[in-house]
C-alpha cells in the first residue's frame, strides 16, 4: 500500500521538522522528491541523507516571482509534479490589538498566497496527466482559533476553504486536494513555547503528549497515495484528540 514509485513530489518547507519527515516518507514510498525551502544548507543535508531520487530548489515564498518559478524548476528537475505538499509556514504572533499590517500580511502571503500560487502552478501538468495529489498543511488553530495567532489562524483556515474549492473544480480530472491539520507537534516552531505553555497545552491533549513530525508525514503519505483517490476536499486532523472535529 501507499506506493509512490514513479511519482514526483514537491515539498515546501522541507528544511523544517515536519517538512523533512514528509519528504522522507514520500521518498521512502518510492517517490522522487524536490525539497524546497529558504535555506540551502539543511535542504542539501536532507538530500544527502536521502541519496538518489532527490532534488533541491530554494524558494522565497514571500516573493511572487520566486514562487512562480518553483513549480517550473521542479518540473525541469523531475519531469512533472504529481504530488504537491504545501507545508511551509511562518508565525508572527501578536495580540490582535497590537498586530501590525506587516505581521498580518507577511503570514497571509507566505502561508496562504504562496499555497494558492503553487497549486495554480502545478495544475496544468496534473490536469494533463489526469492524476494529481495536493496536500496542504493547515493547523488545528485554523479550526479552533488561538489567542495571539489571528494572522496564522486566518491563513490556515483560508487554506481549508481554498482546498475545498479547488478540490471541487478538479475532482473530475483525477486530482485530489486535501489538508492535514497538525496539532502540537515537536518542531522548531513549538520549541519556542516555554515549559509552562507546553504543560498548559498538554492538559488539552487527550493523548497526553506532543505529536511527532513522522505522524504528520504518515497522514500526508496516505493522502498522496493512489489509495486515497476517493478522499478529496477533506481535512485530516492529527492532533492527539485536542480538537475532535
Amino acid at each position, binding site marked *: 500500500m501507499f506506493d509512490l514509485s514513479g511519482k514526483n513530489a514537491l515539498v515546501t518547507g522541507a528544511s523544517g521538522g515536519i517538512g523533512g519527515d514528509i519528504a522522507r516518507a514520500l521518498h521512502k514510498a518510492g517517490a522522487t522528491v524536490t525539497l524546497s525551502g529558504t535555506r540551502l544548507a539543511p535542504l542539501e543535508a536532507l538530500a544527502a541523507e536521502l541519496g538518489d531520487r532527490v532534488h533541491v530548489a530554494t524558494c522565497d515564498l514571500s516573493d511572487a516571482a520566486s514562487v512562480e518559478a518553483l513549480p517550473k524548476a521542479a518540473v525541469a528537475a523531475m519531469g512533472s509534479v504529481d504530488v504537491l505538499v504545501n507545508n511551509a509556514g511562518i508565525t508572527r504572533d501578536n495580540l490582535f490589538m497590537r498586530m501590525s499590517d506587516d505581521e498580518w500580511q507577511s503570514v497571509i502571503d507566505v502561508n496562504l498566497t504562496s499555497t494558492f500560487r503553487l497549486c495554480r502552478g502545478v495544475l*496544468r501538468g496534473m*490536469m*494533463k496527466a489526469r492524476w494529481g495529489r495536493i496536500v496542504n498543511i493547515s493547523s488545528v488553530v485554523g479550526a479552533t482559533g488561538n489567542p495571539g495567532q489571528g494572522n496564522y489562524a486566518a491563513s490556515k483556515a483560508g487554506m481549508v476553504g481554498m482546498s475545498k474549492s479547488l478540490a471541487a*473544480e*478538479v475532482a*473530475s*480530472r483525477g486530482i485530489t486536494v486535501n489538508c492535514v491539520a497538525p496539532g502540537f507537534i515537536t518542531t522548531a516552531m513549538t520549541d519556542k513555547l516555554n515549559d509552562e505553555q507546553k504543560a498548559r497545552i498538554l492538559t488539552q491533549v487527550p493523548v497526553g503528549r506532543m505529536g511527532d513530525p513522522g505522524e504528520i508525514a504518515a497522514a500526508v503519505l496516505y493522502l498522496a497515495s493512489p489509495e486515497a483517490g476517493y478522499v478529496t476536499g477533506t481535512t485530516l486532523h492529527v492532533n492527539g484528540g485536542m480538537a475532535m472535529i
Partner: protein
Amino acid sequence: MSDIADRVKKIVVEHLGVEEDKVTENASFIDDLGADSLDTVELVMAFEEEFGIEIPDDAAETIQTFGDAVKFISGAV
C-alpha cells in the same frame, strides 16, 4: 477545410468525445458540445500546445465556438 481547422476539430473531438459532424462553425463548446468550464480551459491548453502559441486569458474568454477557435488560432500562428 483548412489544416488548422482539421487540427482544432481533432482536438475537440478527442477531448470532448463528440461526433465529428457535431463540430460545426457555430457549435458552442459549452452549449452544443457538452463542455464544462474546466473543459474549455483544457481545450485552450491543448490548442496552445498543438500550435505553439500563447492564448491569454482575455482572448480565451472570447473563444466560445469551434469557429471562434479556428479564427483566433489562424490569426495567431
